[in-house]
């Protein structure tokens, strides 16, 4: 057996992850053709690199099919119930920053806080006969946040992409989405609520609490952790 490390298979997240490990003496690289998801690890023994979609890494960690995984802290919290009983946060990696926020139309001059959103939602429901719609793909995180904050009379509408466009299309009144610079929000005439930060996400190295280890794996794991932390 080997210690399995799951890393995003594409794009900047993959490149930055490779750099981060490289700086710590663990060389990660893809092998074979551009399109083949094969990879190799240098600098430590007994560690195998598994290239996965960032969205699948939480599930693989929870199932114990990989020992370590790099993914956004938002994805782990969204996809895993009681996430900290299933995985352990080993290291915040300092890149891939993104904020999960709640945004409303810029023309809502009367709404700047969650308190306003809640009051506007009550009036909206009385006027339109249904609960104010918030478009998101982060159902768990947003629902828990709004419950803790005591916001009522809203409903979550599933939106897997182009979420910022839902308000103009009148399929939602507000959105809860990931933003880094806020540019897409501004371009779609939306603004962030002052206390509407649901979660500050960044790329994070997680360790599975479920994955089985042989004695040889424990040696490899200790060596790997020694380099990374």
């Amino acid at each position, binding site marked *: 057996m080997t210690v399995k490390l799951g890393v995003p298979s594409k794009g900047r997240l993959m490149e930055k992850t490779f750099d981060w490990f490289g700086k710590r003496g663990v060389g990660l690289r893809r092998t074979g053709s551009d399109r083949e998801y094969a990879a190799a690890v240098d600098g430590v023994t007994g560690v195998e690199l598994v290239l996965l979609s960032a969205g699948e890494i939480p599930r693989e960690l929870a199932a114990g099919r990989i020992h370590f995984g790099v993914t956004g802290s938002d994805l782990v919290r969204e996809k895993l*119930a009681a996430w900290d009983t299933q995985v352990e946060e080993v290291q915040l990696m300092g890149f891939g920053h993104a904020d999960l926020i709640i945004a409303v139309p810029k*023309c809502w001059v*009367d709404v*700047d806080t969650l308190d306003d959103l*809640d009051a*506007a939602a009550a009036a909206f429901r009385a006027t339109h006969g249904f609960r104010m719609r918030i478009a998101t793909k982060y159902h768990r995180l947003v629902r828990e946040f709004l419950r803790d904050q005591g916001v*009522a009379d*809203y409903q*979550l509408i599933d939106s897997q992409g182009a979420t910022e466009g839902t308000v103009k299309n009148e399929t939602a009144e507000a959105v809860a989405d990931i933003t880094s610079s806020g540019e897409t929000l501004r371009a779609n005439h939306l603004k962030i609520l002052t206390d509407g930060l649901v979660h500050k996400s960044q790329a994070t190295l997680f360790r599975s609490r479920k994955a089985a280890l042989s004695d040889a794996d424990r040696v490899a794991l200790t060596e790997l952790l020694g380099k990374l932390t």
Partner: protein
Amino acid sequence: MTPKAKSRNTAARFLDFFEGQGARRVETDILQPARVLLDLYGEDIRARAYVTSDALRGEQMLRPDFTVPVVQMHMEHGAEPARYTYAGEVFRRQEEDISRPSEFMQVGYEVFDRENPAAADAEVFALFQQVLAPLGLRAATGDMGILMAAVRGLSTTDRRKAALLRHIWRPKRFRALLDRYTGKAKPPETRVALLQAADALEGVGPFIGLRSKSEIAARIDALREDAATPPISEAEAGILDDILNLREKSRNVLERLRDISVDLPAIVGAVDMMDARLTALDARGVDVQALDFEGSYGRTTLEYYDGFVFGFYAETRPDLPAVASGGRYDALTSVLGQGRSIPAVGGVIRPELVFELGGAV
């Protein structure tokens, strides 16, 4: 005997007991239309109930409780007064604690009666206490009606009272609202600027989305009105805290509430109701001298109750939830009754907890 058989047997004994008290046995569907429950509880119910769907009926929920379908059934074709009993599984999705069951039995007893609410409260409580007596449980009681009457009696606008009542079951938001209305929390700078602007809506477009310009203007008007409203006095807000902090034997609480009602006469009706209930409980042989009362009981776990609330707990097993709980839910009947309403009170027992504590099997 399997645990399931034990729960069924235990449930059957409670059912017999309630039937013997004159209740009619009823059943409800396990699959309930999601829309009714979502309208009632909001999005939070999705985290607590199993949602499923098909292409024809749309979203359905596995029955998270019996109260809603039993009330609907009564409002559609129930005779008055009515007493119902039922038993069956309820389903609760668990997202945080794997040790909590996602499926368990409930046996219930519900009374729909407009003649004498205090007597109906006492009847339900006394029957639960009687049937649970072998377990030696501690009874907790409260009364949401007193807190709600106190909010209605505040010297402030109807809009503020409505906002506070809407959040009576969400203590955090309730507190935030109260702090704003007493002036303890300052309005955000953006709010101050908004209310000072001659035309707050000029140049802020484009106006996108379903919430119209006139709805935004209406809320600005409401905010202006609110800004011009005098703050709720510290003394009045203090009375709400006094009520929430009550935690004594019922008779002492009643005395204390009589004193409070001198400063807040609006609660007199609710306090009279509590007085009548204690008399009715006493007449049914409940030891009211020993009966605990908590001013904040029912605020976080028992939503939709708007009057008397109660729960029975095993003091030796603080890890267990309430073995039985219930209360009055007059407002729920009007929400589900499409214009009609009837005072109602009831409660449920959890048979699995009863036999875990060594009770009837």
